[in-house]
């Protein structure tokens, strides 16, 4: 990969860009002289009051993106290239203390993991801890604030929940408390990493509604990360990620209706097939609807990463790496089939 070859940035300078990620490259050291590249020159932007969806199957680098944005990558990860700018400030050159003050107050994260609450502390206190770290006030005042956010998140019986320990709550309640932690300081950017995984559909819709509301009331920008296209219906714009690269980006409707990249197409097909009720007689077992497996992140292949699995693969695909090609002003895809068109 030629590091000097800067790709055409999708993120055209628009005033009011809240987050701008440029050529972000992250690799993990797995052993001596053994590295795997998780993100390859990823670039995108998130504007104020925008919900951006990030779609991709597991292992494609979604969570790494989320962690990189929070500057919470594990110790063996290394950002070898690129920049992350929040409001024009580069997060990568920021001191740890300033980053800490940023986390939770300016940007916050909701994890996919269901065990993000300390089992030894009361739930209310854990939310209060976040508030105390960023906006300390009188305890009673903070408690009122927490009660109101609980109410806003649809948690009934706030008093009981406030005093409860995590193991006394249901999965949905726990998730809501985790979201309350993320939202309590009214951050400008919320990164939601699979916020609805392992929840039933009712809870899922509830939580997605909350995100929409949040955007409407507080102008909060949200980066919604999921492997499930259905979850991302709440988004305005969609980024599709495959093997550490953004392979397609564009407004939600356009991408859903006219997917440009063969991977997106396959992914959406799986999803619709899955969503289809069994009475259509379609085999619901076809979980592995995209044949093959994603490439080994430790190997550097000369061609397109998706080519081995691609249904309309050309010979050139194995030897040439595609760039992001603009399809329309806001829609672009990383596939060689558009090269001819250009």
């Amino acid at each position, binding site marked *: 990969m030629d590091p000097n070859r800067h790709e055409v940035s999708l993120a055209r300078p628009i005033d009011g860009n809240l987050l701008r990620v440029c050529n972000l490259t992250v690799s*993990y050291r797995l052993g001596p002289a053994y590295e795997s590249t998780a993100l390859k020159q990823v670039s995108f932007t998130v504007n104020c009051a925008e919900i951006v969806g990030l779609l991709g199957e597991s292992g494609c680098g979604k969570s*790494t993106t989320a962690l990189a944005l929070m500057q919470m990558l*594990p110790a063996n990860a290394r950002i070898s290239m690129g920049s992350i700018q929040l409001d024009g400030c580069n997060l990568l050159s920021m001191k740890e203390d300033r980053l800490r003050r940023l986390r939770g107050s300016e940007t916050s994260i909701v994890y996919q993991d269901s065990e993000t609450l300390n089992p030894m502390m009361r739930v209310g206190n854990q939310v209060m801890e976040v508030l105390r770290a960023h906006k300390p006030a009188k305890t009673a005042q903070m408690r009122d604030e927490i009660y109101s956010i609980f109410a806003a998140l649809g948690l009934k019986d706030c008093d009981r929940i406030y005093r409860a320990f995590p193991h006394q709550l249901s999965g949905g309640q726990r998730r809501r408390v985790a979201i309350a932690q993320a939202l309590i300081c009214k951050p400008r950017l919320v990164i939601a990493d699979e916020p609805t995984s392992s929840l039933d559909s009712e809870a899922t819709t509830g939580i997605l509604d909350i995100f929409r509301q949040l955007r409407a009331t507080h102008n909060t920008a949200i980066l919604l990360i999921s492997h499930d296209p259905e979850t991302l219906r709440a988004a305005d714009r969609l980024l599709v990620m495959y093997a550490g690269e953004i392979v397609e980006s564009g407004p939600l409707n356009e991408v859903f209706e006219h997917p440009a990249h063969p991977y997106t197409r396959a992914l959406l097909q799986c999803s619709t097939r899955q969503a289809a009720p069994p009475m259509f007689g379609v085999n619901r077992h076809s979980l592995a609807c995209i044949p093959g497996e994603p490439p080994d992140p430790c190997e550097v292949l000369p061609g397109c990463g998706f080519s081995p699995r691609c249904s309309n693969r050309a010979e050139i695909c194995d030897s040439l790496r595609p760039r992001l090609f603009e399809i329309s002003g806001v829609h672009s895809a990383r596939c060689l089939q558009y090269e001819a068109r250009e």
Partner: protein
Amino acid sequence: MRLLSKKSLLLMSLVAIHVPILFSGLFAPYDVAEQNRDFSFVPPSRIHFTDAHRTLHLRPSVCSLENSGFGQYHENRDRCFPIHFLIMGSPYLLFGVFKSNLHLFGVEAPAKIFLMGTDLYGRDVFSRFLYGGQLSLLTGILATALSLGFGVLFGTLAGYYGGWPDAVIMRIAELFLALPWLYLLFAVRAFLPLNLNAAAAFCLLVSVIGIVGWARPARLVRGIALSSRERHYVLAARLFGGSDSYLIRRHVLPDAYAVIITQAVLLIPQYVLAEVTLSFLGLGVGEPTPSWGNMLSTLQQYQVLVSYWWLAIPGAVLVPVFCSYLLLASELQPRRTAIDA
């Protein structure tokens, strides 16, 4: 890259210590029991590269000692004896099997070389240190293996099955923790037949310490087994029909791995030191067989510690040896690297 070199550095230093201990017959210049009663408490020999006329020689030499009153010696610089390498000396058995009389270094007859000085009887401390290491390390490892073996066995049984096995095992463990093992040792030592080979008697004794010591690791392992039993993946594996032995082998024990390693690392030096304590009470391995324990126990006589500093050299050597053990073990501990999805 740095990690690798550090680990190999530690390994190299441990090898450097263990090779002479394993091949102590070759490395030790003298027999461990050989007494030189005219050379009691001789300080470490000075090694000279010059002779009395200040002429430089490539071959190092030691000078003969002359006794001037108790514990006072002076070197006779006119009588220097070169150090020979790979010299024939007193016979010994390598690994207890191969007969040999080859020594790595030594000096000719009237002179003696004492790298770490001599003890009360004029025995070479360096030779005793090497031979003593065989016994001490063996007993330390043996006792650790025993107590950990029992501890892990009973701990997992108690933690995994819960219920009455748990109750019974843990009550007995508490009993063992509460009891001072001192007089158990008195009882056992006093009952052993006197004609038992000294090293064998001591190994037996250490086995007793090891067996008595099972309670602490058992408690720790039980705690882990208890929580690991509740983990989702273990429950899932059980639902899939995993047998108990499979679950314990594949899930519970790997969970306890870190604790077991930590315990082993803590226990080995502790049991070697248990030998020191026993020797302090005079219940260690009998004279003239050397062990680090009975060599260090002379240090515990205050005046010896103050007057004959060289007897502390083996003790001082032990500290870095054990430290490198501990450091190596903490390097070996599984470092959970989070690789996200």
